[in-house]
């Protein structure tokens, strides 16, 4: 038993899992002992039952939210990276555009979402635009920082070998920027989900193309609290899944050389 407990990987998985199990246990037992009514605060078992019962509709809503999230995330990665490349090509471009990138970042999505939803007819598209706006900034700032953080010795070496701008970009700046870029991905993936859910709340669209946010709203109207929790649980699960995927991606790309991931494979 002892070697297993000493194994770092086992402890890293088992310890948080144990905390989760204890918390859910306390929650279940606490609710039962205090006999809290389901419509005030449901027990984990109620939520689980609701998850099974509303499975098909919740799953469909999850797919809608997931699609908006992934589309927005992909758009943010492509647009954010392109903007970052523009920023490092010319100081003038960065100086003139960066304040607007900050402006975009500090404006709450709840505040601009109604405007976008009015302006853009297609609901899916308007939701995606809202989520993209939220997810964009970490990609821009991290990738720009990465592309600028070049080892001065290596930069000097490239200069001495008369390397052109494009070669320097491909061989030196881009590989050097990858750790920062992946850091941006981790933050941005979560923000894309938040953006999608918030935009759905604002749009409040029902019908077949409704996401998890609408499920929560709808459950709230009908006081179906366990369904609210079940939808919330799915949103959380999606966020964790996205984050995990980014961690794996960054490990695959960087584990050979970068300090942040070196040793992670052991």
């Amino acid at each position: 038993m002892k070697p297993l407990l000493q194994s770092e990987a086992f402890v890293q998985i088992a310890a948080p899992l144990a905390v989760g199990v204890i918390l859910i246990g306390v929650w279940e037992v606490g609710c039962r002992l205090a006999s809290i009514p389901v419509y005030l605060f449901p027990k984990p078992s109620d939520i689980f039952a609701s998850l099974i019962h509303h499975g098909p509709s919740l799953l469909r809503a999850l797919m809608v939210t997931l699609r908006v999230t992934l589309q927005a995330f992909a758009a943010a990665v492509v647009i954010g990276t392109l903007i970052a490349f523009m920023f490092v090509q010319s100081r003038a471009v960065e100086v003139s555009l960066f304040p607007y990138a900050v402006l975009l970042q500090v404006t709450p999505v709840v505040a601009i979402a109604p405007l976008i939803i009015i302006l853009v007819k297609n609901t899916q598209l308007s939701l995606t635009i809202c989520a993209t706006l939220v997810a964009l900034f970490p990609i821009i700032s991290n990738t720009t920082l990465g592309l600028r953080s070049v080892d001065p010795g290596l930069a000097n070496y490239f200069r001495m070998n008369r390397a052109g701008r494009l070669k320097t970009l491909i061989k030196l700046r881009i590989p050097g920027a990858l750790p920062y870029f992946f850091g941006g991905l981790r933050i941005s993936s979560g923000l894309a989900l938040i953006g999608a859910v918030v935009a759905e709340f604002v749009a409040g669209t029902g019908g077949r193309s409704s996401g998890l946010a609408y499920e929560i709203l709808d459950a709230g109207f009908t006081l179906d609290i366990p369904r609210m929790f079940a939808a919330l649980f799915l949103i959380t699960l999606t966020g964790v899944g996205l984050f995990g995927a980014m961690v794996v991606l960054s490990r695959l790309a960087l584990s050979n050389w970068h300090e942040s991931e070196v040793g992670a494979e052991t």
Partner: protein
Amino acid sequence: MNALMPGEPFNESADKTAAGGERPPAVEVLSAEKVFANGTRALAPIDLSIADGEFLTLIGPSGCGKSTLLKLIANLIEPSDGRLLWWRGEFAQVGQEGRRFAFVFQEPTLMPWARVDSNVRLPLELANISNAKAAPIVAEAIERVGLSDFARHFPRQLSGGMKMRVSIARALVTNPNLLLMDEPFGALDEFTRNRLDADLVRLWWERKLTTVFVTHSIYEAVFLSTRIIVMAANPGRIFRTMTIDQAQPRDEGFRDSPKFAAYCRELSTWLAEASLPSASGAAL
């Protein structure tokens, strides 16, 4: 580990250079001086001719301008006055007719994301040489520095001395005519440094590679060089010149010889004199 083979047959042209200097000097420094923008006089006017195939070492107290002189020779900075010639030509001609420089610095400056062979291939890649053409050259250079077993390793998996070997291999792939080294082994322990010095002197001999080397170490300077330039500060200038008269290729036996000790003693005295305030420009 050691893949460098001593005792290659003599290169005839290098013999001529040693005998009478029929070949043009590799570098000529003609009354070149350097005054920085803030008024610091880093180098007083210097005249220096570096023969083809020579191993020249610059040594001196800090602030004597040895790194500045190396940068002038590398054309990384321009002289404030005077000029330099490379193979009797202007710098614009460097890069043509096989006139190539290579640099090795105190830091190995390797790309952490690239394996050893990719790091060594870098200068060829920057010169747009195809991978197929580069592969045998890269493999040979890696073998020369004794790292064949580590070609697919990442820099972080190597020791400081091995990283320096990679840096040297990278300098060799372009088949340079002039190798410029700025305290390349300064950060290594003495044992590793001695081993790399022995390898370097063999490499230099095999290739008849004109080398300009900057160091703080008296032992390293005597072991490696055919000529040592002792520099003094305020302003930076050539203090004295010492020729090391020792058969090539040198091996570890040279380190233990009385001759080596005598050279070191003399160089040490000169360095002490060069560091004295009375040796400064004000007293001259």
